[in-house]
């Protein structure tokens, strides 16, 4: 189907690029999501407003156009240059960070108010309550919707092929031009995205079991496809997907 030379030169590095873009954007999104999500519950309206503005702006902009914007308008205006992959990771991380902040906010809001009251009765500061009581209880609730988002992100990384980052979609496109064949190549690409998504899901499922065990909840029974089940009510508020 494809020469081993092409495979070694383009396809394997493309797979590695996809993995890198996925993990780096996910890390960036994760780092953004917690402060933004927490600040959106702040008691000062200006803080809530600014964090909410971040969420609304980046949830509502196309991550593809945003990627083009970073890759093609930022370098000439600021007279700097960077790798296209940097633009891709930045655009995906910032956009998915906005989605993920909603998961953090929702999970924090789902911690029973009685827990906050118990924290006040023991004279914790608001920051201590957040760190010792609210976030540890909210964390296991965040993992299933984070998993959804992570898979969306994985699939979204194919956008970087449009700013000339040689990920596995880019390599597949190249191969299609060389071989003048579409069906086997795109089928292979779909299968690869599925395999990656499946591996991520299993990983997140393990993380969830570990997190639940740590807060004294009995882990649920697990089967081969149990992680595919939508589990949390928070899923509903993070309807991502759609136009990229």
């Amino acid at each position, binding site marked *: 189907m494809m020469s081993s030379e092409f495979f070694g030169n383009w396809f394997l590095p493309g797979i590695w690029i996809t993995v890198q873009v996925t993990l780096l954007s996910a890390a960036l999104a994760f780092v953004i999501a917690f402060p933004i999500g927490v600040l959106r519950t702040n008691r000062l309206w200006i803080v809530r407003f600014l964090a909410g503005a971040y969420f609304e702006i980046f949830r509502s902009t196309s991550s593809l156009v945003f990627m083009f914007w970073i890759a093609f308008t930022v370098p000439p205006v600021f007279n700097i240059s960077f790798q296209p992959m940097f633009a891709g990771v930045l655009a995906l991380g910032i956009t998915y960070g906005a989605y993920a902040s909603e998961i953090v906010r929702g999970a924090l809001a789902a911690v029973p108010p009685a827990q906050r009251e118990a924290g006040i009765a023991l004279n914790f500061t608001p920051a201590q309550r957040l760190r*010792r009581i609210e976030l540890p209880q909210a964390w296991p609730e965040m993992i299933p919707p984070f998993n959804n988002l992570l898979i969306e992100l994985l699939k979204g990384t194919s956008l970087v092929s449009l700013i000339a980052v040689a990920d596995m979609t880019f390599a597949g496109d190249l191969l299609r031009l060389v071989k003048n064949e579409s069906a086997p190549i795109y089928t292979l690409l779909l299968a690869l995205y599925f395999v990656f998504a499946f591996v991520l899901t299993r990983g997140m499922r393990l993380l969830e079991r570990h997190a639940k065990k740590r807060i004294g*909840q009995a882990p649920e029974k697990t089967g081969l496809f149990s992680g595919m089940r939508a589990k949390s009510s928070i899923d509903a508020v993070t309807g991502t997907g759609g136009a990229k």
Partner: protein
Amino acid sequence: MSADSSTSQEIPNPAVDGSELIRFDKVVKRYGSNTVLDELDFSVASGKHVTLIGPSGSGKTTILRLLMTLVKPDEGTIKVGDNYLTHEERNGKLVPAGEKHVREVRKNIGMVFQQFNLFPNMKVLRNITEAPVTVLGLSKDEAEQRARELLDLVGLGDRCDAYPSQLSGGQQQRVAIARALAMRPQVLLLDEVTSALDPELVAGVLDVLRDIAHTTDITMLCVTHEMSFARDISDQVLMFDSGRVIESGTPEKIFTEPEHERTREFLSAVL
């Protein structure tokens, strides 16, 4: 920030000498158009055990929640010892208190909730040690030693490593009592602490509280429907109706010869 911390120096603990420890002064609390507390005045002397009784909706629990600063009064002031709880004096004027002042006064108060409200993410021992370590700055060893003593006191010395979800309601409530006591409060607020328990578990919790009431000088403010318990531990019983104290006195007086018609009605309904 530094200016703020210099103004709130250590506020000394109120003394335990039978002097006035808690004072409500014309406290009004409304929820929407419903006035729960209507210019309430009342005080509790240090070391006393006071039980609040009355029909539901009469504002008993609201008093505890105001004292714990879980809700704010709409009007009036609350004093704990010599300090205002929800207000502070600045340049001779009374202004709403900042977080720091509230925490300083609040450290004298502990609360046990109807639904226990243990932290499900922590084992029993850590439920008790977390606040002494984080808030009071005790060493982990010291906090754990104190926690084990308290768990022995409530009869759960062997359940340190259980999660709250593995305990019965009665056991959870006893842990919650130990957790509140670990902060060494001057005042313990008990908000219908047996209402959520199965009948056979009530006695164990009440025994623990009786023990604490008889062996410590802690001031107790108790909302309960357990009239025999109220009779047992109280120095004073306050009868509430429509956000006001309509009658108060020793348990003997209130339970055997109540003066007020509403009190008689209420007692005949619950006894």
